[in-house]
């Protein structure tokens, strides 16, 4: 909304001196964010990968490549790509996979799809569950808080990687018995469940701490004297003040999950080949690192660029959403 202040000029006429814009906290944060060039660059890269992931089938079709089509002609007698730098050519822009001749660019594009899907879903479920439990524990305190806090301590002491690897077979079998389709759907469901089990704790702790502090603020008492119940106070009064740290933390944990999926696929407990995943590509490329270093470099560099972009974005978000910066922009 815009106000026009009429202020008396020297000759007594009313002149429009300034139009003062009213800025909501969201608007202020966006203004701060826009000034951070690294964050904007991060946002651009993330958006680029998102578009690639969403339109993967379309893009590969236009380029005339496929993630699973074998191209024996591009390989020599030893199964290594013809030509220099892993067989980079007009037909295969990023070269081909040794042994099979599958197009690396196409696999990278489909791998982005999987990586971002895993990252987004994992972040979404851990954030929402952690936030919900943190709000409830911080607001209600008492026994609920004690129970949830001790539970979070317990989960934190679990060796998560070992358990994830050890339970992958019984876990997926159990899911398949419950009707989840065999193969990658079961693997992905298993990974999401394990991620949720270990991942909510970080969000829970932050949100609980913030809620404990916020519930003592006078605006909460004001809401209570206005007749508001716990639901309104938790979700309408306290939660809006948590979006800053939550968004920052979520955008920070997302690249972690992208890398986590790659690591698990690399270790053989994530996605099952032939589905394209950056982790599987990395794992596969290790066997050829002497003969075909380009194959190792490309998924590694892509993963690095995406994770880096996410971190720059989350840094920018954290600075922009920090309420301590709120006043600086109020002119």
């Amino acid at each position, binding site marked *: 909304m815009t106000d026009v202040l009429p202020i008396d000029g020297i000759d007594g006429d009313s002149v429009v001196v300034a139009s003062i814009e009213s800025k909501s906290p969201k608007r202020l944060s966006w203004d701060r964010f826009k000034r951070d060039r690294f964050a904007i660059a991060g946002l651009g890269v993330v958006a680029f990968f998102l578009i690639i992931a969403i339109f993967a089938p379309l893009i590969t079709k236009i380029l005339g490549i496929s993630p699973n089509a074998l191209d024996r002609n591009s390989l020599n007698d030893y199964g290594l790509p013809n030509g220099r730098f892993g067989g980079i050519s007009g037909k295969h822009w990023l070269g081909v996979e040794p042994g099979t001749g599958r197009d690396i660019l196409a696999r990278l594009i489909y791998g982005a799809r999987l990586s971002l899907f895993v990252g987004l879903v994992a972040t979404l479920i851990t954030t929402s569950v952690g936030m919900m439990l943190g709000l409830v524990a911080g607001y209600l305190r008492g026994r609920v808080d004690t129970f949830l806090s001790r539970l979070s301590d317990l989960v934190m002491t679990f060796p998560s990687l070992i358990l994830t690897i050890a339970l992958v077979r019984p876990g997926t079998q159990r899911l398949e018995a419950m009707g989840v389709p065999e193969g990658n759907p079961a693997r992905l469901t298993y990974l999401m469940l394990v991620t949720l089990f270990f991942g909510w704790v970080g969000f829970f702790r932050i949100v609980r701490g913030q809620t404990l502090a916020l519930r003592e603020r006078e605006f909460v*008492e004001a809401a209570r*004297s206005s007749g508001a119940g716990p639901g309104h106070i938790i979700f309408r009064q306290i939660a809006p003040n948590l979006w800053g740290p939550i968004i920052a933390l979520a955008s920070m944990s997302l690249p972690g999950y992208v890398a986590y999926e790659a690591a698990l696929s690399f270790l053989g407990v994530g996605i099952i080949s032939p589905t394209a995943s950056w982790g599987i590509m990395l794992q596969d490329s290790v066997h050829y690192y002497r003969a075909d270093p380009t194959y190792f470099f490309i998924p590694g560099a892509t993963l690095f660029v995406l994770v880096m972009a996410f971190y720059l974005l989350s840094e920018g978000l954290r600075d922009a959403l920090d309420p301590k910066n709120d006043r600086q922009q109020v002119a």
Partner: protein
Amino acid sequence: MTNPVVLEAKNLVKYFPTVSKGLLQRSTDSVKAVDGVSVQVRAGQTLGVVGESGCGKSTLARLLMRLLPPTSGTVLLDGADITSLTGRELRAVRAKIQMVFQDPVASLNPRHSVGQIIGTPLKFLKVKSATGAREHVQELMELVGLNPEHYNRYPHEFSGGQRQRIGIARALAVGPQVIVADEPVSALDVSIQAQVLNLMEKLQRDLGLSYVFIAHDLSVVRHIADEIIVMYLGKVVESGSPSDVYSTPSHPYTQALLSAIPVADPRAAASHKRTVLVGDVPSPIDPPSGCRFRTRCPRAQDLCALEEPALIDRGQGHPVACHFPG
């Protein structure tokens, strides 16, 4: 002084248990924040509550507001006991008694627009207004001296005095009879204090409001109150009209408080007798036996440690809780 009593508290007590850290979280001690306070607020009048930090003023306000449950004692609104109401009945009470908070920054949610903030009580207390909710809120904004066009603005865009006006508008939204104001001006500049106080007085005249006005600034209370209670360590030590308390202070604590007000005239200041209290306020976990003020009292005698003085009129024309008033 013949106006009917609107809000009354009888023998209010609030102990906060102190939880000792350890495996067995047994409550051993308690902070005696408010210990047997009785007050009466009359229609259209202002009860001033004064006392230094930690004497239980804010706790008293929250007990009257039913934001805290009292350990014992009763709160009566219009003669009806509201001490143990819950749910719908409590909401009905909240429409009659509202609060203005001390901190103009912390009492307004930074993520809500002014319109939302002032409209919150309307939403929950189901008060029907002739016009729509938005118009009603804008009328309130106009009433407290805010520009109604700022409906969509956020608290950070306002000054301290304006924010306190937002808080007052929120308290007025449901048309309450009583407003409990917990140090409403102590966070403001002196020039702004006067504006907010004048606004509150004007609203009282126009709307017939009753105030419980809590402050540590004695001159502010003298300006606005019709009746004053002086608190020390959770108890009322002296009460009466402003002229009683300010002209003939009888409790040594009240006398010390009043003597701390600076005198503007330097010649008068030379003859101004200053009573300086020594020591600190004792811990409210373990208050002194007998009279709670005796550890800092210039007139303390043996009797004071043995027997707690009752709050009665000892010939001063108003109640004083002191064995040796003077």
